[in-house]
Structures are given as C-alpha cells and as structure tokens.
C-alpha cells in the first residue's frame, strides 16, 4: 500500500483532489459542475505549459527561472506584430520563434558556456523582461485584434482550440519522454551526467534541447495569455516560473533531475489551479490564495517525505534480515539465497 502511494504521486494527488472536491461540493453546492471544470481547465492552461517546459529542463538537472519573462517577451512580440498589421499565423510563428530563440540563448549559456543554470536563467529573467519593456516602452499592449481573442472561444464541450493545443502538447511530451530514445536521454542526463556522457549520450545537446523546448512552451503560454486576457500588461507572466517549479515538485519531479512524469505535472497544475477557483467559490478573499497553496504544497511534501522514509527503513530492515537468518556454514547456496533475498527486498 505504502509503495503504491509513494511510487504513484499522480494517484495520491488525484485522491487528495477528489476528497477536496467532494468536501467543497458539500460546502458550496454548485461547485461540482461541468462549468467549474471547464473554468479550471482554461484557467490552468498557462501554468500547465510553463510547468511542462520547466519539467523538461528540471529532468536534465537544470532549472529555468526565466520562463515568466520569456512568456512576456513572446507575448509582446505577438501583440506588437499583430498591431503592426502582421497576419495571425505569421505573428504566432514569430511569437514561438522568439520563445525558442530565448530558450536557445539559455541553452547556449548553460550547456555550452557551462554557466550554472540558476545563475544563467536569473540573468536572462531580467534580460528578457528588460527587452520587452524597452520594445514596448513600458506600455501595455491593448486593442489586440478579434481573431486572436477568438482563439480562446469555446468550440464545444467548454473547450477552446487553446485547450486542445495544450492537451496535444502534453500527449506529445508524454510520447517523447516515454517512447523515444532521445526522450530517455533526458532522464539519463539528469540522473547521472557523467554516466550519460560515458555511454555516448549527447549530454549538451540534450540540455540545449530542453531549454529550447522550455522557451517554446513559454511562448505558446504567452499566446494563450494574450488570447485569454485580450491585452498584454508589461508584467505578463511575472512570477509564474516559481509557481511552475512548485507544480513540478508537487507533481513528483525530482529537483535533482532524472525522475518525474508528465502525468504528475499535469495533475499538479490542475490541482493548484483548482485551489484558486475553490477559494473563489467559498468566497475567501483572494489574498489567501498564495498562503493556502504554499501550505498545501508543504503538507503534501512532508507527507511524501515521511512515507518515503518509512519505505526506506523497511527495505533496509528486510535487506539486513537476510544476515540474521543465514545458517552457519552457508557456502555457495547460502550466498545465492542471499542474493535472491536482496533482490526481493529491493523490489
């Protein structure tokens, strides 16, 4: 039982979420509805994408704190080119390219120029925000064309084309990480960089790719942001990178790299967003959002840590029980039995 809980963060989150939803359903009738689900989903799109990009970077044992600024910069690119009369598809392409270029610079700094990722992306966090402010002169970008805002409109079932895009990207990422060789390299690089290098994994290319992908995700998040809100404030995306890191941690992605799943990130992002909407429903002032989100994050992590500790202790006890049981003259057979038991204990 314990093993199932510890191995499966997604299940645990789903259970907590289901319990919370049920409780809310009782406390505030009307919360449990398709409309709420649709609102939560569309509200979480930006966080979902930023978290996905951040996850790719964290898997390779780096971190990206510049994604909020990349979001802002690419959204500004989008808005300014649209307002300059560029067609929507071209503007979207420019927006994504901006994000990828920003990610590529991060990747260049970290993978090839060997700057620690936290330092490099802290630097670009300021840099990209600065470029955005200089470009826009610090003004908000308003009067975005209707066809952009239309992207956020429903296409049935309370779902927009943006939602479909995000879900599609998640499925793509899932296939990429689980089913492709290059995806497996992401885990390998984060788990043990030297080992990966030694086994011929192109370590730097993997790290670089992760940053570019993160930049692209942030850019698409910028597009969603602009379409949903209808204008682009000069602080667009500010602080979302830290929230995304929290989502990753909550979703079971190890900050030390090498482990985590797309499903975990997805569930955790939805979970955090649903807290926000629940508070609205309960008419709790919005000032409480951050406090409650932080407290829940800590509780989940604390619980998780205790469970892991318990399991470790059990494995150890079982491993060492092997010695206590071994008969006196246990020669070769004893040794083999020993190994089998060890293997069993570590399972």
């Amino acid at each position: 039982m314990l093993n199932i809980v510890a191995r499966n963060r997604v299940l645990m989150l789903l259970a907590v979420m289901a319990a919370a939803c049920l409780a809310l359903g009782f406390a505030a009738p009307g919360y449990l509805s398709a409309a709420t689900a649709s609102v939560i989903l569309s509200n979480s799109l930006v966080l979902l994408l930023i978290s996905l990009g951040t996850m790719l970077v964290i898997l390779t044992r780096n971190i990206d704190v510049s994604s909020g600024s990349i979001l802002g910069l690419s959204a500004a690119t989008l808005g300014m080119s649209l307002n300059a009369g560029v067609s929507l598809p071209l503007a979207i392409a420019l927006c994504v390219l901006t994000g990828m270029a920003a990610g590529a610079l991060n990747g260049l700094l970290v993978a090839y120029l060997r700057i620690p990722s936290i330092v490099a992306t802290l630097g670009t966090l300021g840099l990209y925000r600065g470029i955005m402010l200089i470009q826009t002169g610090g003004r908000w970008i308003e009067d975005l064309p209707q066809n952009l805002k239309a992207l956020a409109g429903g296409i049935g079932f309370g779902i927009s084309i943006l939602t479909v895009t995000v879900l599609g990207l998640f499925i793509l990422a899932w296939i990429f990480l689980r089913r492709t060789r290059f995806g497996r390299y992401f885990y390998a690089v984060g788990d043990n960089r030297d080992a990966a290098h030694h086994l011929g994994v192109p370590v730097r290319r993997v790290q670089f790719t992760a940053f570019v992908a993160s930049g692209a995700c942030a850019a698409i998040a910028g597009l969603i942001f602009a379409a949903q809100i209808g204008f682009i404030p000069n602080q667009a995306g500010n602080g979302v990178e830290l929230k995304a890191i929290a989502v990753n941690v909550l979703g079971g992605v190890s900050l030390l790299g090498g482990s985590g799943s797309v499903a975990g990130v997805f569930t955790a992002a939805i979970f955090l967003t649903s807290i926000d909407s629940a508070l609205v429903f309960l008419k709790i002032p919005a000032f409480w959002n951050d406090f409650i989100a932080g407290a829940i994050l800590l509780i989940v992590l604390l619980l998780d840590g205790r469970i892991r500790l318990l399991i470790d202790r059990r494995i150890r006890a079982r491993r060492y029980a092997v010695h206590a049981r071994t008969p006196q003259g246990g020669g070769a057979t004893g040794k083999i039995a020993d190994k089998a038991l060890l293997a069993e204990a570590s399972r």
Partner: protein
Amino acid sequence: MTADLAAGSAAQLTNIWKSYGPVPVLKGVSLALQQGEVHALLGGNGAGKSTLMKIMSGLVSANAGSIEINGVPLPHASPALAQQLGLYLVPQEAHILGNQSVLENICLGLRPSPRALRKRVEQLIAELAVTLDLDAQAATLEIAERQIVEILRGLVREARVLILDEPTSALTPFEVHALFQRVRKLQAQGVGIFFISHKLREIREICGTISVLRDGAVVLSGPLDTYSDAEIIDAMSRVTTGAAPTGAPAKRSGTGAGPVRLSVRKLSGEGFRDISLEVRAGEVLGLAGVVGAGRTEFSETLFGLRRQSGGSVALDGVELANRSPRRCIDAGLVYLPEDRQQNGLFLDAPLYWNTSSYLIHRLPFLLRPGHERSLFDKFRQSMGIKCTGPGQSAKALSGGNQQKVLMSKCLSAAPKVLVLDEPTRGVDVAARNDIYALIRKLAADGVAVILISSDFDEIELLADRVVVMAFGQLGGELTENISVDAIARLAFGAGEQAHA
C-alpha cells in the same frame, strides 16, 4: 577465424601528448594492443594511466597523436564514436543511473530498446555466472553488482577492445574467478583487453603483455614472462621518487602486545550480529572477509554512524554508550571510511581543511588557518603527499595521495584505536608500501589498529592477528600461521574451497 583475428591490431595509440595547463601529463605515449591479447597496464599515481584511458575512450581529447581502433582512426574525442568503433571502458567506479532499472542502465545509449535486448543481457548474465535482478532500481545495487553492470554494458555492446580499469577492486575472489574466466573466453574470441590493476598476482594470472607508465611515458613494455615482479615495481615507482623499495614491512617481533584498548562485546546491528573482539595497544588486528560479509556495517556501527541493536563497546575499560562519530573521535576511536570519494574527503575543499576536519569542533570559534596549514605541512612531509600546497583542492590529487590525506585527517585526531576500512583501495604499489609502513609505525607507537581488507595478501602481510567475518558473523580467528589460504577458508565458510 580466431587464428585469423589473432594477428590483427585491436587498438593502436601513436605518440599521444596531453597536458592540463602547463603540466604535461602524457609525453608521447605509444601503445599497441593485438586482438586476443590481455595487456596489463601499470603505473603509479599520476603516471597518466587514467588520462590515457580517457583519451582512448573518447572522453578527453589529446593535444597530439592518433588513436586507431580496429584499424579505424578515431577522428575526434567522442565516447559514442569510440563505442561504435568497438571500444568500451569499464571504469573503476561504476557509472550508475540510480532512478532507472538495471536493464535500462545496461542498455542506455544503444539503438535497440531495452526490451529487445533483454534476452541477450540475460544470456550474458548466465555466461558470467552472476545473479542480477534486471528490474531492480539501480540505486539499490551493491558496489560489486554495479561493477557487473559496467562489464555487461561492455559485453552487450560487443566491444572488440575492452578497457578494464581495476575491475577486481570491489569483487570477491569468487567473482574475480568468474570474471577471469569470462576474460579468457573473450580473449579466445579475439577481443583485445587492456587490464589496469595494481595487483601483480592478478596480472600474472590473466595477462600476457605488460606496459608500465611513469610520468607520462612508457618505461617498460613487452611480454609479461620476461620481467620479474621486482623489475616491474622498480620501473613503475622508484627512479623518480628516490625512495628505496620497502617491500614487506616487518611484523612485530614481540607477540606480547600492550593492554586491551578496545573491547567489543556481542555487538549486533544492521548486517551483522554477535561480534565480540578485543584489540590491544600496539597490535594490528586484521578484519578479513569478502564484500558483503558485514565488515563495513560493523565498523560504521562501532563508530556511531549506524544504530546498534545490541551489545556493548568499551574503550580502555570505559563503556562507550550512545556512540556518535564526535564522541568516538573525542574518546580516541577513529574510523577511516572505505569510500574516500563519498565519505572520506571534502573534495572541493583545500587540503588543510580536510586534515583538520576531524578536529574542527575542538578549534576556537575564530579559526587560525596558519596553524591548520602547518598541521597539514607536517603530515605532508611525514607521509610524502604530492601536492602543490595546502591550499590545493583534494579532488586534484591522485588516489594514493588522497588516501594519504585521509590518513592524515584520521591521525590528526591522535587516535588510540584506528579502524582502517580498505585503506589501499585504488592505490598504486608505491603509495601502498608507504601506507603499509605507516600502519606498522602506528602500531609500534602504541595505537591499536583494526585493518579491514578484502585483499587477503594485505592482511597476511600486516596483521598480528586476524578475525574473519562471514555472513555477518565471526567466522573464526587466526593468531598464528596467518596465510591467505587459511583466511579464505574461513571467509567462505569451512565447506567451500577458495578460488583465490
């Protein structure tokens, strides 16, 4: 086909130069490996062995020179390319991806999926005569099992050139025997093998050719039969360091050791139980056993790193209850850990920080670096630690010198009882002799020494008395006629014949 292969060249290194900064590490090294040849490669600390191996396997690029694998030149440094050409380096410290399964660890970087390779891997495991759970998480593997994973990586890649970097340093004699059988089989298939080791006995058993590196140059190369052990050791170490070969340090002449220093009564804990032993001042007690016998667990429990489940420990007749490392250090019981990289040294810190790290809680609030430096310099002189100065970081030193720094850290605490866990693992012959001499000198000064080692030769050479642990329990004690055979018999349980 085999005869055909045996003639060809497996690897050819020509005039390799490499320097890190202004210091040349390799000065024009040329080596040839024939197919089906097991080629021993020896060298002291800092001789350039590991750099050479890294260059050959594409991990590091050379400044000049050329590398050919199976007749194809390696155009630039790339481990992937070297592996494609058929070369695999089995490193001394296994590279493990802890979060992944054992199977994924073995197959990472290969084109076919792990699932497709499973059969092949299982077959190799059967041929190697080892047990390994392919679905276990790799982080749970023991050191010896990790090494087997590395060897399997090489085998599953069907390497034509294998470099084994001290492959036996973590294996039990039984596993060494199995490994050697596998090496012979590979040899018969025409695989060329570079065999790096510090153990001449193993080299004699398995190798046909030998090359010795010293100060970045090949100083001896040819068929192994034509050289005596003395010649090899001489070529490897002496001329430059100037010291005379110490050989086997004399054991204590008088058997009447001093008073009992440490007495352990029925100590039990994780991985061992009911261990009782005594060590006297001026005595070297060998604690022998194979990997996994529970020796490290015992000594870590002794030093307060793990919780005991029963028994008692007394130092100079005073019971040491609720042991913690600091309490043990203050009482005069000091432990030198087995894994110097992980548990022994602060690798990024300057050397003098390392030396005084066991004493740090006794130093004044405001540290006096001058004193610490001079403390280090004292040990540097007495042990012959090769370094640029007390401010150098520990990771820059070679294995033997790191081990000496670790020793000096233990000695700085002025121990009454010193527990040495594998003090010569990964240490070259010259530094090993220095450490042996030091151990004898400590005993002569009245320190009670417990020497833990899987190398039974070492125990035979140094110990006044031997206790053997097997399967977590005391397997027996030897007070006279200490011999490798007698130790091995006890270590494997009386029923089994030792393969050593």
